[in-house]
């Protein structure tokens, strides 16, 4: 029944992340991809919102997009899980629907 929310925009470039987190229901998953991954950086101004969501949702980042932006696993908000492309596919397959926050 749950939804996979994908966010591909930086939280510094619009409302995609805040809207996704605001409209995700408990049990949903949020996957940050492309520029969306910058929101998961520890100490960023988006980190608090991510931490709050982790209480009721899973939050993932696409590892290759994190690496491409010069970030490492230890730079991420703790509790955020990194997945590869196969993991992305698994997430999409394991949720009832995927919602893209463009």
């Amino acid at each position, binding site marked *: 029944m749950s939804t996979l929310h994908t966010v591909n925009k930086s939280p510094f470039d619009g409302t995609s992340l805040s809207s996704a987190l605001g*409209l995700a229901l408990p049990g949903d998953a949020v996957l940050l991809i492309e520029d969306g991954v910058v929101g998961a950086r520890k100490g960023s101004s988006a980190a608090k919102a991510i931490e709050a969501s982790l209480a009721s949702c899973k939050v993932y980042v696409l590892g290759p997009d994190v690496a491409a932006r010069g970030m490492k696993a230890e730079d991420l908000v703790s509790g955020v899980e990194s997945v590869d492309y196969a993991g992305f596919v698994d997430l999409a397959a394991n949720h009832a629907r995927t919602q893209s*926050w463009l």
Partner: protein
Amino acid sequence: MSDAKKFLYLNRKAPYGTIYALESLEVVLIGAAFEQQVSLAFVDDGVYQLMAGQNTKGSGFKNFSNTYKALGDYDVRNLYVEKESLDERGLSVDDLMPITHDTDDEEDLPSIMVVSRAEMAKVMSEQDVVLSF
């Protein structure tokens, strides 16, 4: 109709600045021919798509705002608008176009429903497919 899927078109961009709003509307009109259960959601700047009094004469864009009023003819009867998005932008439902639809029994029923963020989340979770624009 029993195996018709529930489609929600999620609109988050103001009209004219990008092509998203017009593209969404065209896809809705084409998709509505396939007799699915179609609803529209307006969140963030997407609420601007429904503003009354859009005047594009000076900017030269095609004004497609009146096309939303034809959605009822295409059996698209539910336009959900998030209240928080209106509030953040200093807007209220009175700033939006009146959009109505007919059913077999009644005419001119309002199509726009202002819902809270929590209600919008529930609407989204009840869909088979969400298409984002």
